[in-house]
């Protein structure tokens, strides 16, 4: 992608972030998600429970992680702020990393209505072929453990 900006989200605040690795010189932004911090999203609050805000210690921890990364900081509605950042830098697209939280994919969908979005995968803990049986941990681990330790053998 030509001249993108990078959107960093709360699952990838380290140097292994694939967007930072692929585009080390492009402007990056992180947005403190007002709805999430207010307890209004399922990331931090029971959809059927009372809305209660996230503590300052969690925000402070994120902030200290972010100060060690080359990233501009904003707060508000994530998609709106990322798009405003993209406009300010004349970006032609947005690059981010895949997230487990469904909120990441939902925000990407909103962004895509305005600009192309490239989502890069993070190096997995273990690569499993086909769907894994997640009924209980033991079933998953029976398959995964062998694969994980195979990579130790390669290194050692």
């Amino acid at each position, binding site marked *: 992608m030509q001249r993108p900006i990078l959107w960093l989200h709360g699952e990838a*605040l380290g140097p*292994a972030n694939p967007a930072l690795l692929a585009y080390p010189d492009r402007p990056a932004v992180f947005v403190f998600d007002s709805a999430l911090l207010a307890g209004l999203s399922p990331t931090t609050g029971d959809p059927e429970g009372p809305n209660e805000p996230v503590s300052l210690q969690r925000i402070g921890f994120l902030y200290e*992680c972010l100060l060690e990364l080359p990233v*501009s900081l904003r707060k508000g509605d994530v998609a709106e702020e990322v798009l405003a950042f993209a406009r300010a830098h004349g970006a032609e697209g947005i690059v981010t990393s895949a997230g487990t939280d469904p909120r990441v994919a939902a925000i990407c969908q909103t962004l895509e209505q305005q600009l192309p979005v490239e989502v890069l995968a993070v190096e997995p803990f273990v690569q499993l072929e086909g769907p894994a049986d997640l009924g209980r*941990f033991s079933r998953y681990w029976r398959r995964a453990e062998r694969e994980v330790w195979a990579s130790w053998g390669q290194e050692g």
Partner: protein
Amino acid sequence: MASDSLAGVPLAWPEQPGELPRRFDSRQALEAELQQLFPEAPGALSPIRGGRRQAETLLNRLQPERYAKGRNFLDGPVTRLSPYIRHGVLTLAEVRDAVFARTRSRQGSEKLINELGWRDYWQRLWQQLGDGIWRDQEELKTGHSAAAYASTLPADIDEGRTGLACMDGFIAELHTSGWLHNHARMWLAAYLVHWRRIRWQAGAQWFLRHLLDGDPASNNLSWQWVASSFSHKPYFFNRGNLERYSNGSFCRSCALREQGCPFDASYEQLEAELFAPLPAIRAVDHRNREGGRDRNSTRQGAPSAALSRPARRR
């Protein structure tokens, strides 16, 4: 000390009006700024520092063999990496490789790798369940209906004044540091759900507001495991278990040390007190006894609230 001033790494692009500050004279200055920026957020900064430097310091202290032996004790050699992993400061693959680099025999590192596997497992389930992670995965096995559980957190819990030295200690640590040893999380969760009969979702949300490593995957599914909506039976503990793995540190100073401790009983007595008779529970128990293991023995297949998972022993 240089580490006291907090200056963000330089940016190669101009900052825009309205963007948040990236330079502070001290942690206190950061805290004051954040209190202004986020006035609705309760509490103060955690003594646990965010950032890659601190994560690498902890990573360099990994001792997989000592971890395997002592992880169930509150003062045991657990990694404390969970907040950094949750926010991708370290990827699970990086931690895996750091463990491998310190592995002489596979057996010595199996436990720690297994716990990383729990994290991966919960993440995969979150991907599959989406926001359904807030719903009971299965029926409760406590003999009580879902309606029997209170939907909100009582004030004495939120304020850490239950009168139980252990629980009030855990609550204070949750509120000030945002991190709890996994065993403490399990005891606190079991106390809420089974002794106080509170809906697990209320406890899960409370933890997510405060835990630096909080995400609905590890957190909610571990609460469900304690509650029994994602396990074959409810998790509970007794005083002997808590006293052992906390080295008696809470019981010594507890006002209820001589009498009135709600945990001071055998597992059989507590089971009768906490749960309504349910044929399925007895059947599961019976099978386990035949297998030579009681309900509180170590099991493969018990989940982890964080990266260390205590065995359930008397």
